[in-house]
């Protein structure tokens, strides 16, 4: 596919759908779009976790940053994850996972690159592969059990 040269800053960019893992072109400033392949809503926004946050799944084609006082209890599907606080759940990052010196991840992690600062705590199964292609998220109904 030939990408047209844009005279100004590009008005669109490419992200990967967090549900079907296919590429979608989106307006550069979009916060969420409907995937043209699987027609599901894809969140593009970067998220900051500053306090305690427990959900079943958190998915964005952008970044998630878990800050020092943040605790994220969720399965995470992101482009990039930065952890200065703590994460409890399984992580799939299309690109990079970075864990700061006071960061902790309790759960399994799959990503292309991993950066860990001395002092970080990790516990789980890791798959770090520069050629990693995430499996499409399994379509599921709202799960019955909620994370406390």
């Amino acid at each position: 596919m030939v990408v047209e040269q844009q005279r100004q800053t590009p008005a669109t960019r490419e992200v990967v759908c967090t549900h079907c893992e296919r590429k979608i072109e989106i307006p550069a400033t979009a916060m969420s779009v409907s995937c043209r392949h699987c027609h599901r809503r894809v969140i593009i926004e970067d998220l900051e976790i500053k306090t305690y946050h427990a959900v079943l799944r958190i998915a964005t084609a952008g970044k998630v940053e878990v800050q020092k006082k943040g605790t994220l209890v969720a399965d995470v599907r992101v482009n990039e994850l930065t952890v200065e606080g703590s994460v409890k759940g399984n992580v799939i990052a299309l690109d990079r996972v970075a864990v700061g010196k006071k960061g902790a991840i309790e759960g399994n992690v799959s990503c292309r690159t991993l950066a860990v600062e001395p002092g970080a705590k990790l516990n789980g199964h890791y798959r770090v592969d520069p050629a990693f292609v995430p499996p499409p998220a399994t379509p599921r109904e709202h799960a019955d059990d909620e994370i406390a």
Partner: protein
Amino acid sequence: MIDKTAAGTPVEFPTVIGADAVFKGELHFEKGVRVDGKIEGKVSTKGHIAVSQGGHLQADVDAGSIIVEGDVKGNLVAGDRVELRKSARLKGDITASKLLVAEGAAFVGHCSIGPDAQKAPAPPPTNRIAEALPRK
């Protein structure tokens, strides 16, 4: 350079397993060892162990610290830190108080990292092949 930690601290390797050397068995070193060749079995040292690019380890490793630039299949236990450099390929579990992973490194296995991740110190190995090793 494999002769330096990521922090730039020089590391000395009194023992070097040459590129054409293959060792099978249980190896114990008192100080640092650099593996340019191949080791199958078990390796332990209080010092650093470094697996150079092109080096192969098919071994469980217990060391003060471990630097990997080559291929490793086995479980790594380090008292201090494990460093996976960009050319590193590791299949195995890591237990260490610190972990450093460079962009490009590939790794599959369980990770237990943190000050509490220390396992009980392994019993001293009985078989001291290291003493019979030629020094370069």
